[in-house]
């Protein structure tokens, strides 16, 4: 047999190194616990292939298409004939025009790269600038491509690369768009009822600018650039996402959402930044970009801080603001030497070294600090710098925090609870409003009615603690029995004890 060159040498090396972890209990546990191999579902595989073939067409226009049957070329003269006939009929019977309903269209105002549209009842086709889109059209952008869609009432939507959206309705004063994939930036005209839908999450805006993105699997991110957006998840109460806030909704079975100030890094991320820049160029206010003094000049704002090219250090900085100050915590990972950490803080613009240095730590094992010299209702930006000798080797992310006013009275907090039967269990959904900081929830369940002889007679109670600071939460209780009736209430935990309870929700699980 013709063996490749070096075969035996490689085989000897493999044999030697393969034995290094033999008999290690953790190696055996990892192998034993890992689930057996399985196949990707046919549906997911088909979705993936469809996407890949689209990308293939995008990057090699004209080459990657499956062979179009030659008879299709005969459609061109046929279509021309139909058009001429229609024109003749219109000239002969002009009254027909009066009865035609007025239809609104969106228009592709600006595009670059490879953009495809799927019209209702049609198939995907490549589009050009100024093409009109009717209700029901799906538009998608290929890699390194983008498209701006001018909506008929004056709003616009911008799709960045690898994104997909469907136009659901176009009214004189209302627009509905379905966000399917990637990231879409929306500038809403004042007075328009503008809705973006993704699964069972819907966003409503009035006179605002915001970005919707789902590039992280099963996670939907909403960043409000200007004014505010109301986000409704399932049957939860709507949550307001104000200018400069980011809300992340976990799109899994158990819905969870988290809201916090948007970081400067997120605002400077290329896709979002470019969309906001285009928006600003159209003469629109830039909201949070202006508030944080983020320059709308791509060249000036990127890479202005020098770091050592050899450094592979990653510094993750987090911050929590309370009425008494800001608690900072950080972690340093990766490879690289540093002997000091410098903490930067600024109020109006991005922190810069050394002007905004407020502390320097030579004990590099430190991972937290508290800043108490702050003013309430002021916004601060923090950044950490690793220093080796006299050179800066790595920068952390920038965190933006606003010191709150004294907390509202506890009585103003409320928990709104919904319960319904779902998938053989009970789905509880609740949202928290008016609460400052909290640590989690206490779900209490009491059996109200039970068939005779039940293992869980009426009065049986159980509790479940959930550690979370999410403002909305879903919990599926699968440990319920058919024919039983349960009452639930959810308590808001602050420092380990219940601050306030929701109203009780009672629900009956049908007998089988």
């Amino acid at each position, binding site marked *: 047999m013709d063996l490749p060159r070096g075969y035996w*040498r*490689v085989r000897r090396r493999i044999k030697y190194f393969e034995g290094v972890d033999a008999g290690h*209990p953790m190696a055996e546990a990892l192998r034993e*616990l890992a689930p057996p191999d*399985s196949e990707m*579902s046919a549906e997911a595989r088909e979705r993936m292939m469809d996407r890949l073939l689209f990308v293939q067409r995008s990057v090699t226009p004209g080459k990657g298409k499956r062979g179009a049957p030659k008879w299709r070329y005969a459609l061109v003269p046929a279509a021309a004939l139909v058009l001429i006939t229609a024109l003749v009929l219109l000239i002969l019977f002009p009254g027909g025009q009066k009865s035609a309903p007025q239809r609104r269209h969106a228009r592709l105002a600006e595009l670059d790269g490879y953009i495809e549209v799927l019209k209702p009842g049609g198939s995907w086709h490549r589009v050009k600038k100024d093409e009109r889109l009717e209700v029901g059209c799906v538009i998608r952008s290929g890699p390194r491509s983008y498209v701006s869609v001018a909506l008929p009432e004056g709003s616009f939507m911008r799709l960045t690369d690898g994104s997909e959206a469907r136009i659901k309705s176009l009214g004189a004063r209302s627009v509905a768009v379905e966000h399917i994939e990637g990231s879409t930036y929306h500038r809403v005209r004042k007075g328009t009822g503008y809705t973006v839908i993704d699964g069972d999450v819907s966003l409503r805006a009035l006179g605002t600018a915001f970005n919707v993105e789902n590039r992280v699997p099963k*996670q939907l991110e909403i960043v409000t650039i200007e004014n505010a957006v109301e986000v409704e998840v399932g049957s939860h109460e709507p949550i307001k996402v104000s200018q400069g806030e980011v809300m992340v909704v976990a799109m899994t079975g158990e819905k969870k959402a988290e809201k916090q100030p948007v970081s400067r890094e997120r605002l400077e991320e290329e896709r979002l930044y470019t969309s906001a820049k285009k928006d600003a160029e159209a003469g629109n206010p830039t909201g949070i970009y202006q508030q944080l003094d983020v320059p709308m000049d791509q060249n000036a704002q990127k890479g202005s801080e020098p770091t050592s090219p050899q450094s592979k250090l990653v510094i993750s900085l987090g911050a929590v603001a309370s009425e008494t100050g800001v608690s900072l915590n950080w972690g340093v990972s990766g490879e690289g030497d540093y002997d000091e950490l410098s903490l930067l803080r600024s109020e109006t613009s991005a922190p810069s070294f050394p002007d905004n240095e407020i502390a320097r730590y030579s004990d590099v094992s430190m991972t937290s600090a508290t800043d108490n010299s702050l003013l309430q209702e002021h916004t601060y930006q923090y950044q950490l710098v690793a220093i080796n000798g006299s050179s800066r080797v790595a920068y952390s992310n920038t965190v933006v925090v606003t010191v709150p006013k004294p907390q509202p009275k506890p009585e103003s907090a409320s928990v709104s609870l919904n319960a319904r039967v779902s998938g053989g269990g009970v789905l509880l959904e609740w949202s928290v409003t008016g609460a400052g900081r909290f640590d989690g929830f206490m779900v209490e369940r009491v059996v109200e009615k039970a068939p005779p002889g039940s293992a869980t007679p009426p009065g049986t109670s159980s509790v479940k603690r959930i550690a979370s600071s999410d403002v909305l939460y879903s919990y599926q209780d*699968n440990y319920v029995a058919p024919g039983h009736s349960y009452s639930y209430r959810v308590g808001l935990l602050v420092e380990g004890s219940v601050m306030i309870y929701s109203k009780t929700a009672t629900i009956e699980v049908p007998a089988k």
Partner: protein
Amino acid sequence: MTDGRIEKREERKREFVVIPGKSEPEEALVQEAITSPEALEELCDLYVPRIYNFVLKRVGKVQDAEDVTSTVFEKVLLNLGSFDGRKASFSTWIFRITINTVTDYYRGRARRRETSLEDSGFEVLLEGDSGVERLGSYLAVLDLLAGLPPKYQEALSLRYFGGLKVLEVAEVLGISETAASKRILRGLEELRRIASTGALDGLL
């Protein structure tokens, strides 16, 4: 003369990709997949099962694994033009893309790791009490793994979830075999250390 030297040098470079028992796709197929739908499907047939199972074991959720796998293959397709079979084997290259994509996945979810049993999607394992217990332990191990420095996470997952030989782990991570074996052993020790302080102590 000059041509002969170049040929020898290229052979030496290629030596590390000759892994006994492993087959590599034809370079022609890889290049063809840039433009040909049929070649792309063939390439996916060859690699989707291996990558999907690696990702599934690494992220612990069926839906997320499907999404991450799809992202991996999209990145592969977009960068096929820059793939150079003389620098690395296709397997090495695709695993390198995969671990970077998984790292991005965890970075994006760093603030919200969820490992509820209902969500994991390992339906096969959920049959019977021992299946639930095993799945619970496995998800707990994934949580522990996520707490290790990235270099150990990568080495351990390639070795035990990807089923790669130490030599292949070394190639994917761009380090020597000695360094790879040390990294695996240190990762295992670190994992054992943090597991010993928690509920998994008895099991591990």
